[in-house]
């Protein structure tokens, strides 16, 4: 996969290379490999900070659930397990298609990259549509958190049962965690659209597929977060 047709005259020679750099190589990098490694390391450190940002919500979840296990169990029954599972499968599939987009870009198949990127974006749309139906249903049931919570009132009883008022904490966490994740889905769609645009412009090649690789890493992160959100919110034991 690596016939570097344009470049480098000899091992480790960089001083003279400025005039002969391929167009994608920024001048402060010695070689394409150098640039690729720098991009990836930056992305992994960013992924670490993302995990820690979601970490705050996971900590809040763990503490409240530890104190109110029965409330969490009662409240989680108001979520739709089947919709959650369907969305899990959609996101896992989109991770596969994102990985396939990277793979096709690595072998220089521009059309294949375009195809898999579009399918990944469509999966993201499906995910958001399902989420939209879930959210509107929660709004309708008075399950908004804080002072907007109504599910403790008889008028909002579900199969004859009301929730205790303090179940609003579960929904506060539900909306914050899935909401922040949803924002990441939107940002990921933006990034993948940008990658798709560059690919269509012919800026992606098997010598330079860094944008596809980094964009896909972000998309896999979105998937990773959901992998934990799904059992924690929808499958409370």
């Amino acid at each position, binding site marked *: 996969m690596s016939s570097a047709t344009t470049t480098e005259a000899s091992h480790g020679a960089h001083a003279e290379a400025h005039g002969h750099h391929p167009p994608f190589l920024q001048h402060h990098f010695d070689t394409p490999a150098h640039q690729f490694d720098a991009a990836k390391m930056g992305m992994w450190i960013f992924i670490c900070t993302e995990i820690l940002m979601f970490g705050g919500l996971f900590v809040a979840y763990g503490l409240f659930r530890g104190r109110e296990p029965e409330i969490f169990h009662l409240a989680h029954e108001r979520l739709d397990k089947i919709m959650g599972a369907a969305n899990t499968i959609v996101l896992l599939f989109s*991770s596969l298609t994102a990985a396939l987009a990277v793979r096709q870009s690595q072998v220089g198949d521009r059309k294949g990259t375009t195809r898999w990127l579009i399918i990944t974006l469509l999966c993201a749309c499906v995910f958001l549509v399902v989420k939209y139906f879930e959210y509107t249903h929660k709004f309708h049931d008075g399950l908004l958190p804080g002072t907007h919570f109504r599910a403790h009132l008889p008028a909002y009883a579900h199969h004859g049962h009301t929730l205790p008022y303090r179940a609003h904490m579960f929904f506060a966490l539900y909306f914050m965690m899935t909401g922040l994740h949803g924002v990441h889905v939107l940002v990921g769609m933006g990034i993948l659209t940008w990658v798709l645009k560059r690919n269509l412009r012919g800026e992606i090649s098997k010598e330079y597929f860094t944008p596809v690789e980094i964009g896909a890493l972000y998309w896999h992160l979105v998937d990773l977060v959901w992998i934990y959100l799904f059992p924690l919110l929808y499958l409370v*034991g």
Partner: protein
Amino acid sequence: MSTATNEHHADHSNDDGAVHAHVSSPLFMIGIFATLIVLTIVTVAVSYVDLGSANSFVALLVATLKAGLVSTFFMHLRWDRPFHALVFIFSFVFLAIFIGFTNDDLSTRGEIDPNNGVHVLERSGAVAPGGIQVPAAPPATPGHETHEEHH
């Protein structure tokens, strides 16, 4: 030099400056995806069986297996520089520190307010700053003020 076709040696032995990343076969990736789906089905199935506290343990174990598969193969950590895997693993170490210390702090003070689920001040019994007032259920329950006096 430039036309040397040293294919598929995704390691440091290549020194021509070009990017040498591992290329997975599509079939292998579909295999990983199928495993992820099977694990999802397992975790949903287990949620219908009452295993007591083991339910959460199984759910988190399966989630971690899935996260491991995605990061190792779809995110290429298997073939990447070990430093990237180290960064990834350490984010979870820091998360564990975060959870551990916060839990230690919160489990050694205060009480839970029966309505709000937030802490009340230990000495006076008053609601700690930042709590939420229970919205007055139009005709149903009495207001929150009287409740607070009752403490």
